[in-house]
């Protein structure tokens, strides 16, 4: 923007955004707790929250890093099982065990991300897709077939891990959504984020600019896995029962579809498409015979008319909106619109 326009200082921006988010979160929690939103819709909202985290996390490796991993459900499974085992085995109060379980789920998935990322990220494009697909399936098959480790009954194999404390609520789901989005935002708008973006744009040039390409690829991949693990932990506390079959190949594809539909590299797009694609199958339950047709048609239509996704690479910024309102003067409309475009 040009110099006459007022700009919000960065700390003020964070304060405004945090305040807005806190207001929305508390309002939502009040609605849910007062019973204005039925139990069924609360469940749907929580699922939306979990899917938002999954989508923004996959967006790191697909949209920002420019790779195409197909094993995202595998990381989710690792996180889910890690935190579920922790919560069922450790006799802590659920309110204390839950945040630790969340972190533990994220860290375990992140470690798996590093272990898988180091060999897998030497490959590119379809080769990477296939190797990550393989790793994702290995995780699922291992969980399916191993029910005890060294004599300890841990994962219960195909029978499923049952009686996990149902600690996931509307409030803590969306608190996690907020924190995850904030952390991804701060990571991407920093030298580390720029390094990750430069790898997507041109790996050879990034290398020649002094960027340690392997390190940042693995970092991006591990961050992606970490947040998927957090989503998995929430999912474990949401369902109360884990079955390896819910973390199959189709789950990975489902998340990928959300990222692509929202627009690769756009966090707002990821959030939006996670909301839309989770809500639509639920809203269409009345027409249960046709809902998958509508779902598929929607995907086809968006891909034909907006192949870059709903949002392309656009990222929404509350502060920019406020700046525009502050700087708005009659007769200046055109110039502001133009400035807005450039910022967008």
């Amino acid at each position: 923007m040009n110099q006459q326009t007022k700009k919000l200082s960065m700390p003020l921006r964070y304060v405004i955004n945090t305040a807005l988010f806190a207001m929305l979160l508390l309002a939502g929690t009040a609605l849910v707790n007062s019973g204005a939103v039925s139990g069924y819709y609360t469940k749907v909202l929580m699922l939306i929250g979990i899917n938002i985290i999954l989508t923004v996390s996959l967006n790191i490796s697909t949209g920002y890093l420019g790779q195409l991993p197909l094993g995202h459900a595998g990381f989710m499974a690792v996180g889910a099982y890690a935190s579920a085992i922790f919560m069922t085995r450790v006799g802590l109060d659920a309110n204390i065990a839950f945040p630790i379980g969340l972190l533990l789920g994220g860290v375990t998935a992140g470690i798996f991300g590093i272990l898988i990322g180091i060999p897998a990220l030497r490959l590119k494009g379809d080769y990477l897709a296939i190797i990550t697909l393989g790793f994702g399936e290995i995780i699922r098959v291992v969980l399916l077939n191993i029910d005890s480790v060294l004599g300890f009954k841990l994962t219960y194999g195909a029978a499923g891990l049952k009686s996990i404390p149902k600690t996931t609520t509307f409030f803590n789901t969306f608190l996690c959504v907020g924190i995850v989005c904030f952390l991804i935002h701060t990571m991407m708008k920093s030298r580390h984020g720029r390094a990750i973006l430069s790898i997507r744009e041109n790996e050879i040039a990034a290398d020649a600019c002094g960027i340690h390409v392997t390190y940042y690829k693995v970092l991006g991949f591990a961050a992606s896995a970490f947040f998927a693990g957090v989503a998995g932990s929430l999912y474990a506390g949401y369902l109360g029962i884990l079955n390896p079959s819910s973390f199959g190949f189709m789950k990975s594809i489902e998340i990928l579809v959300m990222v692509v539909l929202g627009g690769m590299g756009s966090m707002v797009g990821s959030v939006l498409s996670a909301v839309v694609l989770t809500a639509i199958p639920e809203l269409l339950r009345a027409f249960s015979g046709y809902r998958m047709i509508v779902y598929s048609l929607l995907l086809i239509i968006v891909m034909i008319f907006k192949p870059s996704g709903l949002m392309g690479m656009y990222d929404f910024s509350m502060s920019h909106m406020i700046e525009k309102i502050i700087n708005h003067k009659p007769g200046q409309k055109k110039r502001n619109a133009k400035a807005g475009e450039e910022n967008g």
Partner: protein
Amino acid sequence: MQRRVKKMDNLVPVPSLGLIPERDVGATPILDIHHLGIDFGGLHAVDDFNLVIGRTEIAGLIGPNGAGKTTVFNLLTNVYTPSRGVILLDGVDIRGKSTHQLNKMGIARTFQNIRLFKDLSVEDNVKIGLHNAFTYSLASALFRLPSYWTSERKAHETSLELLSIFDMQGLADKLAGSLPYGAQRRLEIVRALATSPKLLLLDEPAAGMNPSETGELMDNIRKIRNTFEIAIMLIEHDMNLVMGICEGIAVLNYGRIIAKGTPDQIKSNPVVIEAYLGRREEAGA
């Protein structure tokens, strides 16, 4: 970045002419290459390549198409690993160093076919070049600690300052891919400079530029050398540019250096003329 503060007085008034083998370079040359070579299968793409470049020299590497000029740049940045030979950068052997390590040691380059980060802003392109100049940890970025704010502010100021070399500050918010061709080439040079190199490798910086743009580029290359006090090695087909700004020139043909010297020596060298234009008898026959 402190190097920029110094004034021109400290600069070697007469170019070192390190390319001329007989001359004693005095201080450690910035680049000292001995018997460098690489084979692709049975083909000696570069063979027995010897070159010395002085600390603040502008050196030219010329030769017919396919002579191996870009291969030399790729060897210097370890995009290809040399089969033979030794490269000393500022007296240090750079064998086994990877491309990004070499960048930290002081070799920056541009590419023959422009490689910008097209979907990022011009400023972000330069800031990526500044990646190792203003550092802070991941935790400090995630939680927006003070070191993040100070480093980012410095990076912002420095990137605008660097862009001002080519008078491009006004374009900072534009997408790099949307710039006109000449500006993209200039941005690539700025991005390379942002990594604060000791040796800047320019691969055909004037390709696709019109004569007035080339003239401007020549002034700018000199200006960069004088303010940053770095050595510049360039590959170029535009002979006006090469003869105009290079203090020493090496001519490459079939992967071997066939001549070295000042622009005047090169212009009148019969071997060079033969390589470029062919032999008189053959032409007549």
